[in-house]
């Protein structure tokens, strides 16, 4: 992929800039060289007046590749997905004013899911700031509530150090987006350039190691548990702690559930894994969560979509151990008994060491009884659906995708029913394979997410599971896929409705489907072809598997394929915990 790309755009990489230390540099050169020093591979961006100096320097270098998106929101999403799928900091570059406001949705999305990205934004020249200049917005003001931190660089002498800080802050502790706002005159000013290897910040020292006393208490509590449960979130994925978690769960023999953000943190095909919990979680996971006596929460935050009504959750007595790198996530919605602040991987490693030393073992009889109960819950088979339907069932498409890709694809999704079906039916055995907007729930992330993932993993299978509504929110990125030959496979579960909205309207609004029907859809096959891609329309269940096999066949390996599956319009996502209800008050498919 990379080679053809370079051949297509020979002017891009011919002018090699020779980097040497301690030389004078303009602000624009400094930005570019800092990114190179950080080992950045891709910068996703869109040029504009305030960043022209920076783009001129990008033109002259070949240390990283710039990916020109078609809308700034997609630049940030792609950088975000690069970060999610690699664990490295993603980078986006946008211009001032509308460039920034377009990027805000992407930044807020990354913020809600704690994703490390650095967004460099152009700003009007410093003398013009505050004068309502052309394409001026208060970038640090607008982004403040949705960044981990942000900077306005007013002096070129501070630029290199600020870039270093941005990368450190984004990647450490609880990760998150950092915005560096650089006025145009600063990009033209000249100073001595030296990129600091690291920077100490007296106000920023994330806790790394868990408190040893708390760790001992936690281990004791786990060993004495009779109905234990391990509940893990995005923190396990972000903290690269899946191996430790899986080992811990295996050693103890405890059941595990993952949040939407935590999928892949513990292998979905492992017998100990009860699947996802929460609003659309499995019956067994939600019941076990509600009825356990000791709950180990790892890198998860008890959010409203996970535990439902906190008062209902608190009705059952249980002791809670909560490991999180962010102290403010602990005891925010649910009171916990043993808080452990620290890097999840370190804490789990220490916990494993303590467990291995311990003479006691969990009570086998109690644990057996607990598993018997869980298997009873599991036997409800809450994810069953009609496999004999003459209309394509969306769940079936996801299951087939899992089979065809051998469970080893990177899967991005948009937001809605298809997202839940992807989470329920694609069994993620590895972390960083499931890329979705969990916290903010941003429709339109799927395609730019797939681009970021595919660029980071050129040889991997990348599928974007989406709906006909979500995909249209960033459909312009089909053009970016063409330019860079990004061969993602779009799996559109097209039910001609904003499915999740329709589902809520059916359940809670007397089936009054206000504005949730998708009129005037484009012919997606022709649309894909218009952008130079392969389009497929699939109407019958018996054609699903063949279409997926073809899309992922070697013949189409280099091609972007847009699959338009015409799915059942009336299908709903089950199980479902209504808003305000408790976790054990699920609606199951058969009850309707």
């Amino acid at each position, binding site marked *: 992929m990379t080679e053809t790309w370079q051949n297509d755009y020979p002017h891009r990489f011919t002018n090699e800039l020779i980097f040497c230390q301690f030389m004078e540099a303009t602000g624009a050169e400094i930005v570019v060289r800092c990114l190179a020093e950080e080992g950045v591979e891709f910068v996703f961006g869109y040029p504009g007046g305030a960043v022209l100096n920076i783009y001129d320097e990008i033109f002259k270098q070949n240390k990283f590749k710039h990916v020109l998106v078609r809308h700034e929101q997609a630049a940030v999403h792609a950088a975000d997905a690069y970060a999610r799928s690699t664990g490295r900091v993603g980078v986006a570059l946008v211009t001032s004013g509308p460039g920034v406001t377009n990027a805000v949705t992407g930044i807020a999305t990354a913020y809600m899911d704690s994703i490390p990205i650095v967004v460099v934004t152009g700003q009007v020249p410093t003398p013009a700031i505050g004068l309502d200049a052309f394409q001026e917005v208060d970038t640090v003001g607008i982004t*403040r*509530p949705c960044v981990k931190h942000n900077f306005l660089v007013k002096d070129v002498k501070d630029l290199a150090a600020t870039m270093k800080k941005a990368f450190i802050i984004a990647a450490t502790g609880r990760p998150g987006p950092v915005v560096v706002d650089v006025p145009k005159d600063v990009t033209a000013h000249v100073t001595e350039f030296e990129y600091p290897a690291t920077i100490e910040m007296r*106000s920023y020292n994330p806790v790394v190691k868990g408190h040893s006393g708390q760790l001992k208490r936690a281990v004791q509590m786990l060993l004495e548990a009779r109905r234990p449960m391990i509940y893990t979130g995005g923190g396990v994925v972000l903290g690269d702690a899946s191996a430790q978690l899986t080992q811990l769960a295996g050693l103890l023999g405890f059941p595990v559930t993952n949040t939407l953000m935590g999928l892949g943190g513990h292998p979905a095909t492992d017998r100990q894994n009860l699947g996802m919990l929460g609003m659309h979680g499995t019956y067994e996971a939600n019941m076990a969560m509600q009825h356990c006596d000791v709950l180990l929460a790892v890198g998860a935050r008890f959010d409203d979509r996970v535990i439902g009504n906190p008062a209902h959750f608190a009705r059952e007595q249980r002791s809670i151990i909560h490991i999180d790198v962010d102290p403010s996530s602990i005891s925010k919605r649910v009171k916990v008994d043993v808080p452990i602040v620290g890097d999840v991987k370190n804490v789990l490693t220490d916990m494993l060491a303590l467990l291995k030393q311990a003479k006691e073992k969990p009570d086998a009889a109690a644990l057996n009884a607990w598993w018997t109960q869980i298997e009873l819950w599991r036997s409800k088979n809450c994810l069953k659906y009609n496999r004999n339907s003459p209309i394509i069932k969306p769940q079936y498409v996801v299951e087939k995708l899992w089979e065809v890709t051998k469970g080893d694809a990177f899967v991005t999704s948009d937001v809605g029913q298809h997202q839940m079906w992807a989470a329920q039916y694609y069994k993620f055995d590895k972390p960083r394979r499931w890329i979705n907007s969990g916290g903010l729930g941003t429709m339109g992330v799927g395609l730019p997410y797939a681009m970021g993932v595919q660029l980071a993993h050129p040889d991997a299978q990348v599928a974007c599971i989406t709906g006909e509504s979500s995909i249209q929110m960033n459909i312009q990125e089909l053009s970016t896929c063409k330019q860079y030959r990004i061969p993602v496979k779009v799996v559109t579960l097209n039910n001609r409705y904003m499915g999740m909205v329709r589902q809520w309207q059916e359940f809670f609004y007397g089936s009054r489907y206000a504005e949730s029907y998708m009129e005037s859809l484009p012919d997606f096959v022709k649309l894909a072809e218009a952008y130079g891609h392969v389009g497929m329309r699939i109407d019958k269940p018996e054609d699903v598997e063949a279409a997926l096999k073809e899309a992922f066949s070697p013949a189409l390996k280099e091609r972007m394929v847009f699959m338009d599956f015409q799915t059942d319009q009336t299908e709903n996502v089950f199980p479902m915990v209504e808003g305000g209800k408790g976790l054990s008050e699920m609606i199951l498919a058969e009850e309707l």
Partner: protein
Amino acid sequence: MSRRHIISLLMENEAGALSRVAGLFSARAYNIESLTVAPTEDATLSRMTIVTVGSEDIIEQITKQLNKLVDVIKVMDLTEGRHIERELMLVKVKAVGEGREEMKRTADIFRGRIIDVTDATYTIELTGTGSKLDAFLEAIDPAFIIETVRTGASGIGRGERSLKV
């Protein structure tokens, strides 16, 4: 149970530092009764005193969220221990006829100082806890008050208890 808390914090004296704190309180719907801020003897540091009202859970979240701000160096809930709290108030009052002498006496009782005098007005400077300042305002005839300005509380720990880098 909601209680009044005085939270002191030290943060980097950077542009926008105040708005990060104020923004946090509004974004998370925390109460803010008063907020004072100024640089310390070390000009790179700002010290802020925030008076807020909330349950123990809310105050715990406020403290944690403040600590999470990248520019914040240290946070301390002064009301958790022995502390001193002071607020400055300037009051401009009508001071004419018999009331002029009476106003002076009341100011003296509250250890206020008259810092500006005209034929018809006094401006009185008063320092104390918020409730002392309230008491002064209650002690004088509201009809005499022309304007008041209060700084909001500043606080400091007693004895060895201190907030420093």
